[in-house]
């Protein structure tokens, strides 16, 4: 528990610092919650669920409750680069907390082009004002890849036609922390797929500061909001994996906690979409599922308030939270061949055809895949 104790102490310190800052809201979160009919019990239940989601022990619950009350100290600037707005759409589906309470009660959303009322000069004014007023204090969230070819001119913004590249660099310089929301901002995304005609890159490739990546196409609302909550509590980057993804969300493979995992171990595979195996919820590995190579919490969090997820809906995982997945995981509906020739695929075929010691072989396949993904060391962020 030493590690946790240290985290706990750090979190307490962080809360003290936050408490000393000036609030951006006139009314306390407690009184706002009270008016909305939430009692302390509801609030603590919410804090407990956040604690559980972050895989922390229950003694962290009161700290999350404290942090949430202080969350309105947090000015956010959200910039759109080369993207499809899917991550913003995912963000507005948040229910823990809901998007209206998030925006009106918890955070101070200073700039977000999809949601803000101001346009044109007034919008630019809001951005400049926020970057100045909260210099060194705001969180920068970036959605979309950053086009770098042609000096960044594939994306210009504002009346002065600044490039997206220069704007994201300027905003990053003055930010307290930078979150890349979605696979495009994290790793370049679809526009960076071969032949990457616009020279699109992840944000961490164009700024000189550490960036927390929250990939996914799009990431679930829980991962976006959970990452914000983590920053509020600890005031530092969370523990990150080798791709700068928070471990609490991206620490396990889809495959590890998949609801169809039993069928993989038993050698029961969907051989064709819509067959009897598909109707019985068998493993989608042979239909191209990339769950064994993909780190994310979709298996447990799912999407849209746990309603469903790709594997639940009978489609394999396409690996959307991994770097360059469009190029490395395709064809999306076929198992990978290049990565594990004679490895996992062969094992799967063995299971499918001979059914010999199916469970043992399934575990063996798992071990092979684990070796494959563990070849780079994970790192702790600070």
């Amino acid at each position, binding site marked *: 528990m030493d590690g946790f104790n240290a985290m706990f102490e750090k979190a307490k310190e962080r809360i003290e610092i936050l408490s000393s800052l000036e609030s951006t809201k*006139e009314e306390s979160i407690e009184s706002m919650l009270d008016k*909305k009919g939430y009692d302390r019990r509801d609030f603590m239940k919410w804090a407990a669920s956040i604690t559980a989601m972050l895989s922390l022990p229950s003694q962290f619950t009161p700290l999350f409750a404290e942090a949430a009350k202080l969350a309105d100290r947090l000015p956010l600037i959200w910039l*759109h680069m*080369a*993207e499809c*707005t*899917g991550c913003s*759409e995912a963000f*507005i*589906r948040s*229910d823990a907390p*809901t*998007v209206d309470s998030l*925006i009106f009660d918890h955070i*101070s*959303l200073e700039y*977000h*082009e*999809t*949601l*803000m*009322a*101001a*346009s*044109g000069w*007034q919008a*630019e*004014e*809001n951005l400049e004002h926020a970057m100045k007023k909260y210099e060194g204090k705001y969180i920068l969230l970036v959605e979309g890849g950053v*086009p770098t070819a042609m000096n960044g*001119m594939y*994306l210009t*913004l504002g009346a002065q*036609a600044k490039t*997206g590249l220069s704007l994201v660099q300027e905003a990053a310089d003055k930010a307290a922390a930078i979150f890349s929301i979605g696979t495009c901002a994290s790793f370049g995304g*679809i*526009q960076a*797929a*071969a*032949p*990457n*005609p616009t020279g699109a890159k992840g944000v961490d490739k164009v700024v000189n500061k550490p960036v927390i990546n929250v990939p996914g*196409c*799009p990431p*679930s609302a829980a991962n976006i909001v959970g990452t914000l909550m983590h920053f509020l509590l600890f005031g530092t980057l969370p523990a990150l994996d080798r791709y700068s993804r928070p471990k609490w969300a991206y620490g396990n493979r889809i495959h590890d906690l998949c609801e169809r995992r039993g069928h993989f171990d038993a050698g029961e595979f969907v051989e*064709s*979409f*819509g*067959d009897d195996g*598909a109707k019985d*919820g068998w493993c989608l590995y042979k239909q191209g599922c990339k769950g064994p190579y993909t780190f994310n919490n979709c298996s447990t969090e799912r999407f*849209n308030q746990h309603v*469903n*997820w*790709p594997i*639940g*809906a*009978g489609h394999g995982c396409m690996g959307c939270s991994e770097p360059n997945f469009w190029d490395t995981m395709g*064809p999306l509906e*076929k198992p990978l061949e290049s990565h594990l020739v004679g490895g996992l695929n062969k094992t799967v075929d063995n299971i499918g055809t001979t059914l010999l010691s199916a469970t043992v072989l399934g575990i063996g396949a798992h071990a092979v895949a684990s070796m494959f993904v563990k070849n780079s060391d994970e790192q702790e962020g600070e």
Partner: protein
Amino acid sequence: MANKRVVIDPITRIEGHLRIEVEVDENNVVQKAYSSSTLWRGIELILKNRDPRDAGLMAQRICGVCTYSHYKAGVESVENALGVVPPYNAQLVRSILNESLYMHDHVVHFYHLHGLDWVDVVSALSADPKKASELAFKYSDSPIATGTDELTAVQKKVAGFVEKGQLGPFANAYWGNKSYKLSPEQNLIALSHYLKALEVQRTAAQMFAIFGAKQPHGQTLVVGGVTSVRDILSPARLAEWKSKYEIVKDFIDRAYYADVVMAAEAYSTEPSVLGGLGVKNFMAADGMMLNRTENLFESGFIKDGDLSKVYDIDEMKIKEDVTHAWYEGDEPLQPYDGETLQKYTGFIDGDTVNGAAKVIDPNDKYSWVKAPRYDGQAVEVGPLSCLLVNYARGNEKVKKEVGDFLAKTGLPVGALFTTLGRTAARMLQTKLISDNAITTFNSLIENLKTDDSTYTKFEIDPTKEYMGRFIGEVPRGVLSHWVRIKNGLIDNYQAVVPTTWNAGPMDKNGQIGPYEASLVGLKLEDPKKPLEVIRVIHSFDPCMACSVHVMDIKGQELSQYKVNPLGSGAAC
């Protein structure tokens, strides 16, 4: 006296990056307008040489707002090329997903993207909640989220921000502009619905996710069918869809419909929303399969506002012009022959009402969006076009819905040909879809009694060449995707999308597109606070990432496609 230039960049509350510029005369009346998209991503180029089965999931990333439209178009253009017909269950589920998308997308557009152009948030703070609560019954027999207590709470919540000059996402907008026409009480009703809609849209997204895996970016369509067979065969899941559908439909009936009626009444004499229809050619495609024989919407083309004649669409008459788009080329080309070579010329230094800025040079190229033309004509697409084409075709459901709305508001048919009409048409389209989606759902239930198939097997012969296309109605209008497959891989991919039709720049003949034409003649109260412009542009529901994707930087010539007759309809 020379015209003054107004630059609005970024246009916010849209998908993507859009710049609008207008030139106003000394009376602040718009003389000229320019529409420019300032981002290019190159997705069609990226699709080349990929497995055709990946087309749907990749093309889907064109847009995360109308997320499902490009997914379905990508999958169905490949099916069209390969001659694959998915089972009836799969066709119905695809239609249910499309209906679910519309019910989500249009509600979010009206309240969160367009609503603040009609609703003055600051004015709502001076409303009497009790009066507002009573007033809500004028527009709906059973209004939603408008009780006195609830309205008081909404008012208090927003007042907290305003008193300390801390408006959050509402900061620095054009509040108080004289072209805002709702009374404080009406503004409060709408503001309450703005917040309620944030909740309802989450339910609408869940409705989609039940059979679609997640929203945005569903993951359940494959070439040959759908994969969510377990959800489709589960009575619990079917019931879950129906109960969520009822919640969303209820909001559409009791809030969305009522609020548009309220806005139509309040804005019926406001000049800045009674124009806004510069291009009077309209196109619509088939959409919303209800059962084996019936689609809710039919396709067609209306020329020059003449509703007495609806033409069938001839695909060969679609051409794209790049005279003023950042691509090289002299002649308008049919999409199959699309020859595109980037030629970025940027902006020039200029004066604006807000001081020096980079501005569009109208004599040069000025947008990443091409200018599509039908038979040489600029065309508007979208919900208004869809309703007009179907009204003119004599579609009974559409005629009744439009007729009821006009009777309820006392507006003449001519009121449809306006900015206000465009916004009303989107609501009426949503109402039609939400009323009829249950027919599609019941068709599925009926068919599942005897048939549980969801997938058709197929093969791609690498020695053969295939070509095919999808044309269908999506939330922003007519969408088409075109694919050629060679050596088992995508050889070429093109998408001609609704926002391209509407947002395109001037063509070779000096003909301007719907966005630009809709602004000419508009009078601004204050050019430094161009609310009127934003309102007109938002009424089209801009989706810029969709519209900017068409480019082949090698300038390769695409070969001829075989043209299939429009309106297979089955899977639209």
